[in-house]
């Protein structure tokens, strides 16, 4: 898989300039693919700080880029401090256990987990795990469903109104229902996953199911008649037909759907976490809002930037996966 050079438009010209090859043209390319986006970001930062200076809230001035950077550093510092505390906590336990075992050979040592509060980095990982669980669960349902619907005109007509009705439903509407159902159904003394995780995950799943179902179905339904004729002439069985013709032919559309679904999943997740109190980025934003300290707005802005960057990274990741899996490289450019 060759991602490095083709993905980063400015890398090759930089190498060429370093080699002294065609310096003028290559510098122009670098300016276009790297310089102009940087100028855009710079202008945005300047406008942001000017605007931030003029907005006064009950918690003080609206945070500008500088304040947000300070808060980001603070959050990382907190994370590192928490990690050191955790390591120290486990070390103390080990020493104490060793002492007790030495004194009493029958003593069975137990390690108690560290119970400090989750840090910002922990919350990012919780969010990522939740969103991926919901997204993967949705894909496992949506792709086969889309294929089956796409193969039959009648099924397509039957499902289409249902899909169209559920597609625009906001996660905030689903959440109370999901919470009630999860509370009623997911009962266990020693639950493997916390309820807040299950609730958030199912809400994400319900909201990000539809783009993949629709795009897969459309992709399958629009397979060229010629390819289906080939399958007919060869008398391929139903499953061979799906495996050899339908899936490869619809892969580009399936990925279009998956990418839409993942970006929706990520947006939905933040809202779901706020209400379900799943300890991820959504809860972080909510807690900071409730907290209302002078740092809160800066920290929320850090979360907003993080959410944006992760959303962008997730989309790029899907694009890379698509490039790797799909035969049709031309459909996997942006």
């Amino acid at each position: 898989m060759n991602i490095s050079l083709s993905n980063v438009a400015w890398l090759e010209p930089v190498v060429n300039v370093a080699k002294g090859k065609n310096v003028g043209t290559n510098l122009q390319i670098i300016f276009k693919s790297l310089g102009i986006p940087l100028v855009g970001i710079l202008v945005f930062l300047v406008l942001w700080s000017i605007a931030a200076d003029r907005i006064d809230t009950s918690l003080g001035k609206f945070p500008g880029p500088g304040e947000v950077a300070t808060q980001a550093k603070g959050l990382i510092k907190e994370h590192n401090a928490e990690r050191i505390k955790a390591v120290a906590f486990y070390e103390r336990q080990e020493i104490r256990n060793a002492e007790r075992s030495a004194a009493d050979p029958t003593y069975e040592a137990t390690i108690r987990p560290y119970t400090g509060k989750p840090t910002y980095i922990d919350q990012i990982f919780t969010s990522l795990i939740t969103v991926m669980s919901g997204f993967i669960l949705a894909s496992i349902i949506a792709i086969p469903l889309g294929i089956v619907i796409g193969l039959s005109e009648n099924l397509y007509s039957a499902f289409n109104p249902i899909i169209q009705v559920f597609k625009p439903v906001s996660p905030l509407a689903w959440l109370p229902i999901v919470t009630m159902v999860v509370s009623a159904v997911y009962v266990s003394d020693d639950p493997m996953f916390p309820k807040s995780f299950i609730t958030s995950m199912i809400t994400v799943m319900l909201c990000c199911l539809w783009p993949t179902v629709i795009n897969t179905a459309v992709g399958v339904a629009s397979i060229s008649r010629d390819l289906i004729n080939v399958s007919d002439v060869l008398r391929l069985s139903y499953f061979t037909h799906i495996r050899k013709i339908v899936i490869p032919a619809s892969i580009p559309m399936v990925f279009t759907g998956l990418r839409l679904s993942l970006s929706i999943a990520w947006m939905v997740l933040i809202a779901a976490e706020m209400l379900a109190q799943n300890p991820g980025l959504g809860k972080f934003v909510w807690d900071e809002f409730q907290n209302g300290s002078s740092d809160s707005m800066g920290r929320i802005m850090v979360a907003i930037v993080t959410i944006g960057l992760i959303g962008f990274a997730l989309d790029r990741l899907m694009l890379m996966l698509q490039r790797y899996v799909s035969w049709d490289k031309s459909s996997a450019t942006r």
Partner: protein
Amino acid sequence: MNPLLELSDVGIDFPTPNGPFCALQGVNLKIAKGEFISLIGHSGCGKSTVLNIVAGLYKATNGGVVLAGKEVNEPGPERAVVFQNHSLLPWLTAYQNVELAVQKVFKGKKSKAEMKAWIEHNLNLVHMGHAMHKRPDEISGGMKQRVGIARALSMEPSVLLLDEPFGALDALTRAHLQDSLMEIQKDLDSTVIMITHDVDEAVLLSDRIVMMTNGPSATVGEILHVELERPRNRIQLADDPTYNKYRQQVLSFLYEKQRKVETA
């Protein structure tokens, strides 16, 4: 003559909101083994429909098709089709495209090594041995059509059905492929039905040219026996009075007797 393929009183109606549309009516045709038949007619005259019925992709409303004593009801590899738009699977190489057909048709009959040899043999037959591991988007239109022919031949069909196989190609490429097809047909003694709207192609390649009347309710108008010596050479034939007489007959059918009335 004991025909290999027989179409008797074939007709087809397509349902439309305004009642059934009769596309074909009373098509009768007997084809012997090893014969090369061309179907020619104006576009929309139902020649593709005839081919699709023989292929089993459409079902005739009236009459039926019998191949080697068996009625045709569904598509199958013994009636392999070469489609106009090559219809290769774009995610597979030329080799893999032929392999898909060979694996399906010769499953349990040929060993893996035999299959490989058979796939390569068929690709070599159409002069695609050098590019067998290229994907359709890496080869030219003519090469794609060659692979399409190799795939059809690899099924060892009783009848080879060609649906305007060279229609989308430029004149020079088309001539190359016509020569290849003549060679292959001579070597394999295949029975071929080809749809074309190219008069020269029909006269050059066919033993018989079936000329279709205009639709609706299209049917066989005239059948022209082309009694030219094989192998045929396009350059010598260009000057040949018999060749030109055949050509003239087809042209007169198409442009005088069945003059296309433009309704649009």
